[in-house]
């Protein structure tokens, strides 16, 4: 929104007149009713559960309704170690969620494999197969960190445009909402990553302008 309009809005609100846009209203509703999937993988899930209980009270953010079906969920919190044997199921659960859908990768294991990175059985980060919106470092992250990640996601939702070229993936017809489920190979998962999602893979342009590949 242009700055003049914002100022006008503030000026009007000072005089007791409330104005809004459809986009703001829509995103305000969406960001305050993000329903996560009932889904935990490892010790991070215990912190996630703690976050929903009375002391940390994720319900304050409209996210207390953990849905036991991916069809009813808006958010998948990948809370814990994703083993290679579990990775296809995680991707399948993500595929079964309706758009718009969001992903929080919680903890060192979910974002990179963590202490098990050099092992034979752990996926080196779920962002190899599905697009992650917010990464939380920590082992495990404290409930405050999850709340911070959740608020970061809320800000992200709030800023999503409903029209124009910058609109998010779920509003663009050509972009996929499902991603290929990796298969069990003879030595590991096939393929080891989805290059269309995992932007920093070899042969794919480095996504972030501040990053470059070390040769």
């Amino acid at each position: 929104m242009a700055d003049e309009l914002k100022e006008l809005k503030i000026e009007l609100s000072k005089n007791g007149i409330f104005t809004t846009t459809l986009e703001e209203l829509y995103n305000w509703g969406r960001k305050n009713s993000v329903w996560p999937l009932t889904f935990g993988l490892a010790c991070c899930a215990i912190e996630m559960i703690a976050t929903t209980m009375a002391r940390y009270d994720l319900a304050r953010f409209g996210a207390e309704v953990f849905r036991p079906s991916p069809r009813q969920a808006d958010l998948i919190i990948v809370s814990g170690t994703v083993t290679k044997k579990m990775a296809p199921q995680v991707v399948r659960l993500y595929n079964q969620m309706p758009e718009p859908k969001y992903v929080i990768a919680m903890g060192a294991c979910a974002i990179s494999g963590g202490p098990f990175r050099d092992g034979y059985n752990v996926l080196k980060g779920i962002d190899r197969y599905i697009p992650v919106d917010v990464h939380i470092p920590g082992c495990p992250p404290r409930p405050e960190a999850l709340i911070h990640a959740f608020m970061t996601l809320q800000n992200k939702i709030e800023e999503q445009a409903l029209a124009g070229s910058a609109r998010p993936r779920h509003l663009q017809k050509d972009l996929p909402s499902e991603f290929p489920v990796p298969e069990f190979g003879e030595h590991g998962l096939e393929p080891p990553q989805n290059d269309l999602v995992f932007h920093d893979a070899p042969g794919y342009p480095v996504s972030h302008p501040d990053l470059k590949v070390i040769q």
Partner: protein
Amino acid sequence: MALPSPDEIKAQIEAGVPGASVTIIQNGSPSGQHSLLLDHAHAGGVAKFLRDHAEWRLDYCTLVTGVDWPDTETSEKVKVKKLVKGADGTESEQEVDEVRKTKVPGFLEAVYHLYSMEKKHGPVVLRLRTGNRTDDTRVPSLTPVWRGAEFQEREAFDLYGIVFEGHPDLRRILMWDGFKDYPMRKDYVAPADEIPLVEARTPAPGQETHG
């Protein structure tokens, strides 16, 4: 009642199970937990003997695991008499140190820890060894004697490639069925799925993306 010494156990096994040969593997650590190496042909009989022994009643197998002993090369210095050319060109017989290398073929090992619930004693440690690490990786299964060994033998099969003959359901348990490797072996190499490292690039003036 405490268990007798490994020598006593060995003697009783060899008396109780005709033809069985038991080797005691010494454990040099302070725990002194010596173990019994069984031969393949009589392993099942020895296991039954230990389980049903009136005084020992080793009815509980707490642990089955695998051990990988890779091929090793030992080298020792041997003094050998040899003709050596001296500085003046004459040959003379001298004692020379020579390094002799001997290759010791590796093997896989299944280890069982036995306790008695009834008599409250233990452990007795059993070992079974395979012929080598490549084509003769069979050992007899002790699952028919201790039912609780089933999943742990499957795990040793999955991660070490030890084939337990007589196991009722020998399949991989942790890795998927199509998996070809044995990840806990010493020479296992994980698939190269690392990505190139990225480092922060200093943004050009006016190109800063943050702040």
